[in-house]
């Protein structure tokens, strides 16, 4: 059965390693924070100037000066630090963030990503997404495998304006965990009860399937 948003987040959380500094994008990526494995100590970076995002504030305790990159009120953990946007992107551009998780409209088998603009329809801007994908050492995309109309989001070429080229390393969808290799997408795991055939059918880009594909353990 296809995973829901929380299932995708839970699987991505397994990629976290102790000591990681992690930037979580808006949407499904934000949910990853709810599933950080026991014993794994990670610090969350928010590109608007916070290292050490804490949980949402208690009722009535929201602070207008303390928000995340999605403009939601948050808290700061003990040991947090605040800084300006130039310093924040020095962290990102300088490769100091260990893992970036973000959403996407489309991903290609070369690791290209489209995530910020639907011409004539949505003109919100790229925010920090282009900086993140251009500089992160390790980028995981969290997305549904297909769009609402059932079209694959894992393509040969992006049809929408690009956010970055050849940067995504791994995709976790509601159906599968897929690595991006020199030879295209490579199926690593499938969602519980989802068949390899379904994944193949719903992946438009080149997809390598080698040997037995295990189910995710979530």
């Amino acid at each position, binding site marked *: 059965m296809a995973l829901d948003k929380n299932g995708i987040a839970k699987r991505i959380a397994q990629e976290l390693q102790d000591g990681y500094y992690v930037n979580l994008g808006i949407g499904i990526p934000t949910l990853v924070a709810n599933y950080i494995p026991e014993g794994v100590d990670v610090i969350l970076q928010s590109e608007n100037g916070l290292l050490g995002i804490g949980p949402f504030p*208690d009722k009535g305790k929201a*602070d207008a*000066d303390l928000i995340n990159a999605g*403009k939601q009120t948050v808290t700061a953990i003990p040991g947090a630090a605040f800084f300006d946007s130039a310093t924040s*992107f020095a962290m990102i*551009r300088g490769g100091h963030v260990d893992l970036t998780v973000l959403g996407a409209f489309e991903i290609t088998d070369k690791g290209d990503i489209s995530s910020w603009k639907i011409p004539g329809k949505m003109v919100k801007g790229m925010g920090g997404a282009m900086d993140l994908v251009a500089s992160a050492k390790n980028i995981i995309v969290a997305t549904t495998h297909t769009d609402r109309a059932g079209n694959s989001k894992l393509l040969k070429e992006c049809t929408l*304006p690009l956010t970055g080229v050849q940067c995504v390393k791994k995709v976790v969808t509601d159906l599968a965990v897929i690595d991006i290799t020199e030879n295209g997408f490579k199926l690593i795991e499938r969602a519980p009860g989802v068949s390899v055939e379904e994944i193949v059918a719903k992946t438009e880009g080149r997809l390598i399937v080698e040997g037995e594909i295990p189910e995710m353990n979530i």
Partner: protein
Amino acid sequence: MNKIVNNAKEAIAGITNNMTLMLGGFGLCGIPENSITALVESDVTGLTCISNNAGVDDFGLGLLLQKHQIKKMISSYVGENKEFERQLLSGELEVELNPQGTLAERIRAGGAGIPAFYVPAGYGTEVAEGKETREYNGKMHLLEHSLVADFAIVKAWKGDAYGNLVYRETANNFNNMMASAGKITIAEVEEIVPVGTLNPNEVHTPGIFVQRVFKGENLEKRIEFVTEKQ
């Protein structure tokens, strides 16, 4: 040396039509509220505004958009604003979208006398159109240019008569860099403190970057998305 002025109206004196302004803040967090209100009341028009975001329809820079005082925006994210989207799609408003880190660095560079620098963000995307590219460390980079403004308007938590500023939490964001990149920098602060009371180790923006300081009154500090524990 006393850089304190009485109010927002005095602070924005000299801002005239077709000038370039920088305005601090991320979303509605850390925006110079009184200054924006004074700009709305001044009827100044044809502005180029450098600001990470464009406010919401009825707050922040949205107020200047509604009165058509802005000719061009240089931003990274302009969602959450229907009037903005309408003016953009109708061609009334010119918009230059920058990757957020590139925008932040262009402003820092403007304040630091660095006219141009290379970054990887945006390579291979429409942001790269017309820009010089060069490979460094096996990766393609774009040459980006600095930004300066006739006036930079920032919001700080505390400030003194020398122009030294301290920000609170994530309300720093673009304010610190912008303070350095205005020919004239206006700081709207929540509290004016006597010179000598800010710990010199903890000053975020040294006063050399700031020309005018005033106390913002009745700050609303609106929250865009109140999110609390379930």
